[in-house]
Structure formats: structure tokens, C-alpha cells
């Protein structure tokens, strides 16, 4: 039996009486795109925060490739191969798109030479290629604050991919993006993930996106996984239609 890429065991956390995670045990296998859906406030983002070390659970464990990473800070978990993209893109606003990626590559490669220019680092071509992959090559030299929300989302994901992770956790990759742009962004994203051979977990509220791009869906409700299965099967489940799709719609 193979070790899951990410596994949680009995994760529990509460915030002032609200249960955000209630004895959550979940296994995520490599090579899949898992979508997490659920009502607002169900604890989906908290789950991502716990898996990346930003929040420590009151009880339970997080294992990445079989190693217990529960007590590690985010940076140590990132160093082990878990990257994160955010609902609100977390970028270096005084830097260009390319520089954001070059900084990520420098962090990944442990560049410590104090006299080499960031732009002369060996990863430059690789990062330009990554920008092409996410369809942002034409804005490589623009400050990220000048870009559209959709472009910032893609740059945020590209920064995470620059770390060459094994697992990418994304919080609502298409939120704040115009409906007409959502499919385009997801097409680019799924292609980039496949090319980089990265497993992904993404929180999403758009059921159309989930149906089209997820290999598997987990329904989060009241701090736990209520259902899990293939998109077609899950999205037609009466409980999901009542508790999740009904609310989202």
C-alpha cells in the first residue's frame, strides 16, 4: 500500500466555540486534483491553514509523505514540498511579476551569493518559461500591483509552482475574477499543474469549475468531510444540493 501524499488524522480545532475542524481524517493521493466545497464558514480555509502549518490543531496530526509535520512552521512544510496559493494573492507588491518568481526561485535554491544580481540568477529562463505557462509572459516586467486580479491570481500560483512543490493547496483560485475569465484561468492552471506533475487541492465555490476541473470532490460541512467522490456523483447528491449548492446559488 502506497503512502498518501498528504494525510490528516483526527484534526480538531475550535474558534470560540465554533468547530472549524472536527476529528478530520483525510487522505490525498498523488496525481489528483481534489476540490473542497462547502458552505461559508465550514472550515475549508482553516483546513488549508492547518495543513500548511499556519494554524496548529488542538488535536490530531498532519502527515506529508508519511512524515508528521503538524508542529512545523509553514516555511519548514514548504521546504518539504507543499506550496500555497491564496484567495487574496500574496505577492511582493514593489516587485515585477518576473521578480516575484525569481525571488521564489532564489528561496527554493538557497541563493546566498550577496553580489550576484537577482536577474542574473540561473533560474531566470526557467521562470520566464513558467510565466509563459501561466500566460503572463507579456507582463513579466510589470509591477504586480498594475495587473488585473486574474493575472495576480495566476502569478500567485506561478510563484507557488516556482518552488517545484509536490502538492499545491489553493484557496478559491477563481474568486474575484470575472466569470468570463474563470475558465481560461482554470485551463491554464490545470495544464500547468499537469506539466509540472503537481497534485492539487483547491477550495472552490463555483460548481461549474469543480465539475469541469476536479478529479475528485470533498464536501466540507460543520468542520468535517461529509461526502467524497467523483464530481458527477457528488454534485448530484441531494445533501450537497440542499446544503452546499443551494447556499452557493
Amino acid at each position, binding site marked *: 500500500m502506497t503512502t498518501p501524499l498528504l494525510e490528516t488524522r483526527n484534526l480538531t480545532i475550535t474558534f470560540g466555540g465554533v468547530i472549524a475542524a472536527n476529528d478530520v481524517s483525510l487522505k490525498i493521493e498523488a496525481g489528483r486534483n481534489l476540490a473542497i466545497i462547502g458552505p461559508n464558514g465550514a472550515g475549508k480555509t482553516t483546513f488549508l491553514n492547518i495543513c500548511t502549518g499556519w494554524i496548529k490543531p488542538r488535536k490530531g496530526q498532519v502527515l506529508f509523505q508519511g512524515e508528521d509535520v503538524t508542529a512545523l512552521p509553514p516555511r519548514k512544510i514548504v521546504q518539504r514540498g507543499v506550496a500555497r496559493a491564496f484567495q487574496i494573492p500574496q505577492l511582493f507588491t514593489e516587485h515585477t511579476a518576473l521578480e516575484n518568481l525569481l525571488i521564489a526561485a532564489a528561496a527554493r535554491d538557497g541563493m546566498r551569493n550577496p553580489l550576484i544580481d537577482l536577474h542574473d540568477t540561473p533560474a531566470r529562463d526557467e521562470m520566464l518559461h513558467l510565466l509563459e505557462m501561466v500566460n503572463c509572459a507579456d507582463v*513579466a516586467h510589470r509591477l504586480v500591483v498594475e495587473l488585473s486580479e486574474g493575472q495576480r491570481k495566476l502569478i500567485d500560483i506561478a510563484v507557488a509552482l516556482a518552488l517545484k512543490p509536490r502538492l499545491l493547496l489553493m484557496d478559491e483560485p477563481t474568486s474575484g475574477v470575472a466569470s468570463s475569465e474563470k475558465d481560461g484561468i482554470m485551463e491554464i492552471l490545470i495544464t500547468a499543474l499537469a506539466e509540472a506533475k503537481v497534485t492539487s487541492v483547491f477550495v472552490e465555490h463555483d460548481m461549474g469549475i469543480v465539475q469541469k476541473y476536479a478529479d475528485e470532490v470533498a464536501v466540507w460541512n460543520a468542520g468535517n468531510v461529509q461526502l467524497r467522490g467523483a464530481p458527477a456523483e457528488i454534485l448530484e447528491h441531494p445533501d450537497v444540493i440542499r446544503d452546499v449548492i443551494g447556499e452557493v446559488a
Partner: protein
Amino acid sequence: MSSVSTAPKTDAPKHPKSMLWIVGVVLLAAVPFAVPSLQLLVTFALAKGLAVVGVTVLLRAGQVSFGHALFFGIAAYACAFLMAAIPGADLALLLLVGTLGALLAGLCVGLFVVRYRGIFFGMLNLAFSMIFWSILEKFYHITGGADGIRLPRPTVLGMALERGPFELILYYLAIVLMVVLGWVTIRWFASPVGQIFQTIKTNETRLEYLGVSPRRALLSGYLLSALLCGVGGVLMGVAQGAVTPEYVWWVRSAEMVFIAVLGGAGSVRGAFLGALIYEIVRTYASAYAGDIWQMLLGAFLLIIILFAPGGLIGIFGSLAGRAVKEDAK
């Protein structure tokens, strides 16, 4: 799919402006012969300028230290103690020991203060500098108290020099240090480690999610800033021939921040330009307007902040840019 543009790797090289800076350094080098009365004043200004570059480094990460005179003073006192222990010690040894002293102090203080940001960072630095000031004041049997300690003239490469030649060598040493350390700092800013350090200003969350410790990143810059302040402190101590607790007094730290803003916050060249202008204005304002010179300086800074937020370097840059355009026509 969009194509990769061939935009420049960095800002376009500003050769005409670089030439202006070279001319500036040459003019400085001519001061001892052209205007000898300014020689010591410029030495003081360059010593302060180096310390201001240290403060400038932290400004690039969005942090303001109100206590960096600590490292300025520690380096100067290290030199004074060394001269007391080894009379006739060499200037190179003083520079090495003073800088190492500042670096070591930077490590000790830095490991603690890099946990904090903003006003807490600034005030904790101030607290450390004032603790050291109290030690200097109270342990007078060791430190000389408020009177300080004499710092006799060191030898230079084994040679005991008279005051004139010594001050001339010190002057050129200050210019060399300005050019070398200024260049190193600018290169460091452009390097991956320097760029990571500067991201502390904009997004520590992302930095953490790149697998980098923001505290460690800040510590790297903090050590560089302590080193620069240390070199400035050694130069100032040796140039003045005495060190006093005033070296670490909060006014000295505030003066460094003042000059950094005046010169153009975040600019290495601005730090030196600001220090030169500040020292000249301060000297002549105190000579000709003894009672109101601080007020004049304050008004000067107000005008800069209100009308030239880029500081003196911003004014210099736009003037130089205009001159280059005129030249191109």
C-alpha cells in the same frame, strides 16, 4: 500564448548619472587641496554617511531603528579600549576590531529585535542603545563616564604619523570606504538575499510560504547595518581622537534617521549626499545662527519632505536627468 518580452533585466544603466557620481568622488578627493578647511568636516560627514547607510538598509525592509548609534558607539569604544590595551595599534586593526565589535553586538541585539516590527522594532533598538549609554555613563572608572576616553592617534601600516598626514590618510580612507561599502551595499540590495530582505516591507506571509524565515532575512540586513554603523563609528572616533557616551545618545540615532530621510529614504548615494549637506548646514548654521540652528535644520527637513519626498537624491536625480536630456538635444 503570449511571448516573452525582451525588456531590460534591470533599470537601464544611467551612464551619464554614474559619470556625475564619479565627478563627485573626484571633487571630494580634491577637497584637501582645494578647500583644506573642509577636510575634517567631510571626514565627519562620510563617517556619519556610512552609519546612515546602515539605517538606510533597514528602511529598505520598512523598518526604522531609533537606536543604531549603539553600533556606532560600540565600534568607537572598542577602538578606544584597544588603543588603551595596545598603545600604537594600527589603524587597520582598529577598523577590524571596531567593526567586529559592532557586528557581534548587532548579532546579539539583532537576534532579539528581529522578532518585532514597526514601532516596537524602533523603540527596542532605542532601548538597547540607551542601556549602553547608561553603562558608559555609570561605569566611569572603566568608560571615563561623561568625559569619555581619549583615542590616541593609531599608526598607519606601522608608521607613526603627524596629525596633518594622518588626517589626510584618514580622509582618503573615508572616501575609499564610502565607494567600496556603498558599492557592496548597492550590489547586496540587487542580490537575491538583498531582494528577499526587502520583501519584508511588502509581504512576510508570502516570504514564509517561500520557505524563508522572515526573521533570518531581517537579521541578515540588520548585521549589514550594524557593520556599516561600526565602520562609521571607527572613522568618527579616530578622527575626533576621543569617544564619549554622546556617540550612543538617542539624538545621534535620531540624527541618522534624519539624514537618511533628508538624503532620500532607501538610497545609498542619498545617505552620503544627505550626510554631506547636513554636516555643512549644521556647521555653518551653528556658526552663524547659534541659537536657532536646530530650527533651521528642522525647517530644511520640512521643506524636503513637503516638496521633495524623494529627498536630496531625488532632487539631484531629476536635475541630472534634465541636464542629460538637454545634453542629448
